[in-house]
């Protein structure tokens, strides 16, 4: 475990009622880096997308778990959202704007696009049948 950075790691059930909870948690954690309102909203939105994806796409059955991890160091927040669900066969395709496997439930296919436009780095690791990790970095209080 990291000793120099401050961090948190949390596990919650993959249930839609936890989307708002995950936003509050990451918002409270990020606030120690003194982000602007805009930066805070960027982080909450990106985390909401990744957590929602784990809830919507990862698990066929109820009872699945989502891990939310975050590390804070000066001017930099790193977040990881992990699930142990079905995984993504083709990550490149999944990350294309408007690509979705759930049009029938009105998913727009814009989740990854939103994450990418609000965060400085987005990395997706996924293994079919074993789960998905979305790792994101946001630089805070840095001039562009």
């Amino acid at each position, binding site marked *: 475990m990291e000793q120099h950075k401050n961090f948190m790691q949390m596990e919650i059930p993959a249930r839609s009622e936890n*989307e708002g909870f995950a936003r509050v948690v990451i918002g409270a954690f990020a606030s120690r880096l003194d982000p602007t309102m805009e930066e805070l909203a960027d982080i909450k939105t990106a985390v*909401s997308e990744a957590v929602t994806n784990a809830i919507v796409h990862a698990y066929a059955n109820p009872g699945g778990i989502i891990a939310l991890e975050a590390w804070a160091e000066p001017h930099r927040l790193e977040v990881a959202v992990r699930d142990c669900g079905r995984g993504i066969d083709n990550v490149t395709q999944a990350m294309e704007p408007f690509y979705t496997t759930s049009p029938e439930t009105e998913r727009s296919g*814009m*989740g990854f696009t939103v994450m990418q436009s609000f965060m400085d780095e987005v990395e997706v690791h996924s293994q079919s049948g074993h789960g998905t990790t979305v790792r994101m970095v946001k630089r805070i209080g840095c001039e562009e």
Partner: protein
Amino acid sequence: MTTQIHYAPKGVLRVRLEGELDHHCAFQVRRELDEAIDWSAPAVLELDMAGVTFMDSSGIGVVLGRYKRIKSQGGSMRVVNVPPRVDQIFSMAGLYAIIARG
């Protein structure tokens, strides 16, 4: 998230959304809007977004879905008072190519 529905004259259905529009509440918002659309068969659906304090890409699906429904009935749709962050996400999705911004 709460929805305030007003049936205005001349077939305008005005709906004011308030709160956080995420995947969790999308189902309920969708149901309430669809009921109102089906019941009143409006010429125009106007979504007032002024009170939306948070929205992620789930909101795109909600808006696009209602657009399709009302278009299939021969109506049209517009969004008004769109807060900057919501606007950013709507723009990203190219929504204004098909839905008017009031």
